[in-house]
């Protein structure tokens, strides 16, 4: 009787789990549909934003395109079609001389990996460099290979910058936050500083980073600002996670002969992971916006730079499509990365009820 009951309970739990999963998929589908419906409505001719918001699916009509299949999304003049047609190379960017290849050395211009690395490091090969090193003259920017003008390389650079900044900031924030548990003096020094900067709106710092470090060294501006912001957040999250560990657990560890170091290793470190993981999701969500914002302020390579160029040309035919497409890209990217993160964190914290309660 008892074993049957247990099996029933388990089966019911399994059914509930399946139902929740199906429901979550349905909710996501409804959310995506509503998003596109709102987008289509805002882009209709009767809408006051008709010229500012292009249709997502092209000029022939969204529903017709949907019926024609997914490929319909990538045709005509809609935002998605604009994004797709400019991803590899962009004629619009070519005629505006907006490119993503700072290393103009003739031997390197055809190497996209090198260009991405140069953009991340802020390295440029110019006529000054050529004069200093005795190298060949740089390639005129009107003659760069097609990929240099595509949105793709800009977006890749931005994604790497933001992920690097978030990673550096997380490492720094956790290192300081967790070490402050072992060495209280760290907390005494760092908490007032973090509190001071934490109260200031982080976006206010962006123009200062541009002024201090210029637009030439994105490793200090984009990556630097994201690192700074993530460090602050992760410091607070790690401190709070540690403080949220019940005192009883720590006391139990002490009664079992735990030393500060062993308690840090076996109690604090695993005990704070679920909460720190949740904090990291929040920090990363903010980092996307912050990283792009700094690029909009003047960094010459990156998705934010594309937005900066197009926002000055808002009246032109392709500008609304470009802006909506790029902004939507970052929104979708943030959601996708967060979903991937969710899977990873769920796996890492599968032992933790707290992790599950976080909705992981």
């Amino acid at each position, binding site marked *: 009787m008892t074993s049957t009951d247990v099996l029933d309970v388990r089966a019911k739990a399994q059914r509930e789990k399946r139902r929740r999963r199906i429901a979550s998929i349905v909710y996501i589908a409804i959310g995506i549909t509503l998003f596109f419906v709102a987008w289509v409505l805002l882009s209709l001719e009767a809408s006051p934003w008709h010229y500012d918001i292009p249709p997502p699916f092209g000029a022939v009509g969204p529903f017709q395109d949907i019926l024609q299949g997914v490929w319909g999304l990538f045709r005509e003049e809609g935002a998605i079609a604009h994004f797709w047609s400019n991803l590899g190379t962009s004629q619009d960017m070519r005629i505006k001389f907006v490119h993503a290849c700072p290393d103009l050395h003739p031997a390197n211009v055809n190497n996209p990996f090198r260009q991405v690395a140069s953009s991340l490091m802020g390295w440029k090969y110019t006529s000054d460099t050529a004069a200093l090193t005795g190298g060949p003259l740089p390639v005129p*920017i009107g003659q760069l290979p097609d990929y240099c003008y595509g949105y793709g390389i800009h977006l890749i650079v931005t994604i790497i910058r933001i992920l690097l900044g978030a990673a550096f900031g997380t490492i720094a924030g956790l290192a300081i936050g967790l070490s402050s548990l072992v060495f209280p003096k760290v907390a005494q020094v760092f908490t007032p500083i973090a509190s001071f900067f934490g109260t200031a709106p982080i976006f206010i710092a962006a123009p200062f980073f541009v002024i201090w470090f210029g637009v030439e060294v994105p490793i200090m501006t984009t990556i630097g600002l994201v690192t700074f912001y993530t460090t602050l957040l992760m410091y607070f999250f790690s401190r709070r996670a540690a403080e949220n560990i019940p005192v009883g657990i720590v006391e139990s560890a002490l009664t079992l002969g735990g030393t500060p170091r062993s308690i840090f290793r076996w109690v604090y470190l695993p005990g704070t992971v679920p909460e720190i993981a949740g904090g990291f999701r929040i920090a990363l969500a903010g980092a996307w916006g912050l990283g792009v914002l700094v690029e909009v302020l003047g960094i010459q390579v990156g998705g934010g730079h594309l937005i900066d160029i197009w926002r000055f040309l808002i*009246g032109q035919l392709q500008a609304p499509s470009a802006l909506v497409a790029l902004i939507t890209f970052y929104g979708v990217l943030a959601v996708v990365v967060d979903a991937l993160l969710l899977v990873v964190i769920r796996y890492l914290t599968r032992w933790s009820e707290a992790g599950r309660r976080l909705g992981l």
Partner: protein
Amino acid sequence: MKKFRGAIILMVALALLASACGDDGSAEAEADAAAAQAAAAEAQAAEAQAAADAAAAQAAEAQAQADAAAAEAADAQAALEAAQADLEATKAAAEAGDAEAQAALEAAEMKAEEAAAMASDAEMKAEEASMMAEEAEMALAESMMVEAPEIRTAEVRMGIYPCCADLAYWQIPIELGWWEEWGITITPNQPTYHYFTASQEIVPWLERGDGDVAQGWVPGVFGTLETFGQTIPPIHFADIYVGYAILVAPDSEAKTAIEFMDEGMSFTEAATAAVQQLVGKEVHIPPHSTTQSQYSDAFFAYLPQWWEDVVEDIPALDGEGNPLVLLGRDGSPVLDDAGNAQPIRITTNDWRNYSTPVYVDDPTIVQLSAQAGRIEFAMPYGAPTLVQMMRNGWDPLINFAMMYEHDALSQQTAIASSTVGGTGLLARREWVEENKDLAYRVVAMANRILAYLEDPAVQETGWEIEANIINEKRGITMEPEDIGVIWDTIDPSFNWEDQEALWDLSLPSYHPETVFRTQIEALKARGVLSETYDTQAGLEEFLLAQEIYYDLKGMQDRSDDLFARASGMDLSASQQALIDQAQALYDNYNFYDSLRFLEAALIG
């Protein structure tokens, strides 16, 4: 009256002609409406004139009666006096005891009595006639009493981007209360304008219908001509921006064109040497230069390799499709060695084939330039940014002013002249069509402000108002004198008198029609506009400012005629008051209301 009637008949004839030529119903309806309006006006004027004529005739008749009665009374008085004299003489004779004389005395007394009665009668008649004459005069005065036409109160949704002298000048009527004089309330940020925080906000704001009018950079709309550009055409051109300059940092070793000239070079050599220093270097420039690169192209055209690298020429044509040619100071074509006229060559070549642009907006350029060694060359597009950087020690490596001064007849200067632009009032076409009177008043206000800024007696106040709003909104430190320098040297304005040459292609001036044609062709060549775009038709539709100007010019001419006519007339007090009001409006370039007041005063 005859003149007026002739003009009305002419208007009716024109309206009928327009209705006959019109190819759609609305044109015919408009012509019919105009004809009906003209006929009604004629009838009204004729009626008023008839009433005035009748009153005048009545007054003249009464006056004649009064004059006759007065003459009769005078005769009677003379007869009475003669009779009295006769009576006195007869009395004297009678006193002398003459019986005959006694009889004569009696007869004379009777005559005197009769004469006195006649005189009394005549006096009464004269009084009556005088009263009639007074009544007739009052009737005449009443018939000549006129009322001022109404200037309707209205709201105008207007926005400005107070970054620069040629945009911030709209602050002057707000500060001086000029809008209230003309019954206009500025909204939606009542009592002042909607202030844009960036230039790119202007076009979408108008296009969305959030506002009716905004001062903006006119060539910036060309890229939208295939979408919604025609819905927000310019209704007034304020100025031409000739301040383009490539600035060089104070700590740079690069020399300016003037420094090269000081070393003994000609200007062409100096300009070439100066621009040569930019090859392979970075130039900080705002992002909207991506589609307005023609100004920098004029500088880089001094490079010898520029002309070798040209792949395609962009047609630079006049209104009749003829190629534009280089002109000398006397307006005649500059000939080459073979005696041929030299066409102005606008090409698809681009300065960015020689230098690397770093796209950052003007405020960021200023911020970056504040730190020595960070940037070496910059080309800000905003005059205040330019002035502030020059005040901080940046020198123009080369600028348009140098080219105009030292190399006015060159191909490079011709490129500069044929591609520059300026700001103007952009307005929603729908709003203009529904509120023509407001459009006229807003344009009149622009002319009034520009005249104010040219008046040495008061211009400093205008500069101060401009500097204050720019400093407040842009966070920079302009002095009032800086604004004056900008208007004098960087942003020369087109006042009302200049506007004629702006639109009359036979007069030497900056001609938007010609310059814009070249710029639109350049956009087509660069792929911003499609190759099939009809430039001429598009321009004709776009330049609503031209139509508004000629409307106002017509009103001014008609006002002049009416002022001249009024000066030869005997006007009533109410007429004179209206003429005075019309003069005040006329003096402030509000020809629309000036004409209305004049017509009310003189025609009724």
